[in-house]
């Protein structure tokens, strides 16, 4: 017979989410997305496909955008995570969020948290992107409402505002 229980049945994940240390004890057979949504009640990141195609679950882990639905929860141990809940500061929307709202970069809004964290991460590293570069940067996020044009417009505007010092 196979062993009844091998390895750790529960794990304590020491993760820093949006600047706050949030240690969580959990079973390991869950995704990072499930840990964020179910245990930490951070329901911004969404599960769309659950297989790494749509990007609705995008979170930024140690400065890199990844699919939360493909990352095992215990692999967040020791990591720093940014979700859409940590993007606005002091009650003021991030320039990316503000531009998305103003320029109609969303309709149903399901994909929007993924787009926002992808874009915030990208624009922090690439302050002066071309339209083509923005389209490549958001290629891992699918939107079935907008046709992308208004999202691209919003991100170009957000980049401009961030350059002009409205960034954080």
């Amino acid at each position, binding site marked *: 017979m196979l062993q009844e229980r091998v390895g750790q049945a529960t794990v304590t994940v020491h993760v820093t989410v949006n600047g706050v240390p949030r240690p969580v004890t959990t079973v390991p057979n869950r995704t990072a997305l499930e840990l964020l949504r179910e245990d930490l009640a951070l329901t911004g990141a969404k599960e769309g496909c659950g297989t*790494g195609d749509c990007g609705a679950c995008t979170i930024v882990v140690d400065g890199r955008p990844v699919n939360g639905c*493909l990352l*095992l929860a215990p692999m967040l141990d020791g990591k720093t995570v940014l979700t859409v809940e940590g993007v606005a500061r002091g009650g003021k929307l991030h320039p990316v969020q503000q531009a998305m709202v103003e320029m109609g970069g969303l309709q149903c809004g399901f994909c929007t948290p993924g787009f926002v964290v992808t874009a915030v991460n990208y624009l922090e590293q690439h302050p002066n992107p071309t339209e083509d570069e923005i389209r490549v940067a958001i290629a891992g996020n699918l939107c079935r409402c907008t046709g992308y044009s208004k999202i691209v417009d919003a991100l170009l505007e957000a980049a401009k505002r961030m350059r002009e010092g409205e960034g954080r």
Partner: protein
Amino acid sequence: MSSRAATPTPTALRWRPRSIEAFYRPLRRQLDHDSERCVQSQRGRPRPFLPRAVTRGGQIGVGESMRRFGYLAPKSVSEAVSVLAEHANVAKLVAGGTDLVVQMKDGVRRPQVVIDITGIDELRTLEERDDGLHLGALVRMGEIENHPLIIEKYPVLVDSAKLVGSKQVRNLATIAGNTCNASPGADTPPALIALDAQVHTLGPTGPRVVPIDQFFVGPGRTVLEPGELVTKFVVRKAAPNEGAYYERHTPRKELDIAVVGVGAWVRLNGETIEDARIGIAAVYPTPLRATDAEAALRGKPFGQAALDAAAAAAVAQSRPISDVRGSAEFRRWLVDVLTRRAVTNAVARARGGGPRAGETH
């Protein structure tokens, strides 16, 4: 096989189904085949094929998208080898998780133990040494596509790594994961075959080195013994008269899986192709090394005659299947076209020109 025309017209393009039923019949056949395989994989416990959302609610707790498993996170390679050897038959290694997590969610793989090797820093090597480029097992696709040295000297790795999944997936997916998952259609193995990569492994019996073209034994299967893991890939140092290129065909640009992909490497001596290596994705039960096509190029001057011979040999060596991504005949036609394109662009790069790293569309 050898009498096959150089550029067969795919029957898929001539196909005019007489009814809507006839149109859907190949897809239906594929779905029946898939669900049959799914049932077979339940180890003698036949169970109807159910969509994931249904199985999830019935078998596992809320907020747990996978069956239960024990979790181990070794901090050194030797520790990883010993725990892997101890639980060899019930454990899976996870590096990026982009394949394994999906397989576990679908119930295709049900490991009792998951061994997370991402905390092992020794597996993150990425540097050029005297004997060539050392790529640690945990090097991510996203690191390869943005690494200045790789972009400059090993652009074929960028061509292939940049095609894997999306940016978010490439920030997780690793070179060893893409190799050890052993999908016949994976993008990086043809590039590694073209570069004659050597796979360094460590197991209970010690380290060994396996040439990449002998690493795969079937779909999802490699030569790795129980308890053995890949530590790194070593690629010989690039020389100025050498060039390599990878291109695949997919219906859409991003987030797709190759219908066919071809990677080619050449070493030139003036106008003559002194040596060549060709790797092909999705036309064989494993990533295919097209040795006949290589032989057709070796010692020949680069030109139409050499390309014709290499393309015909590559087509003859392919054993493609028909599936949802394309018919066998369409795939043979793609092998012909992409072999020519890959060799031509590899030669262009060997001459100091050619497409920039990663610009393969």
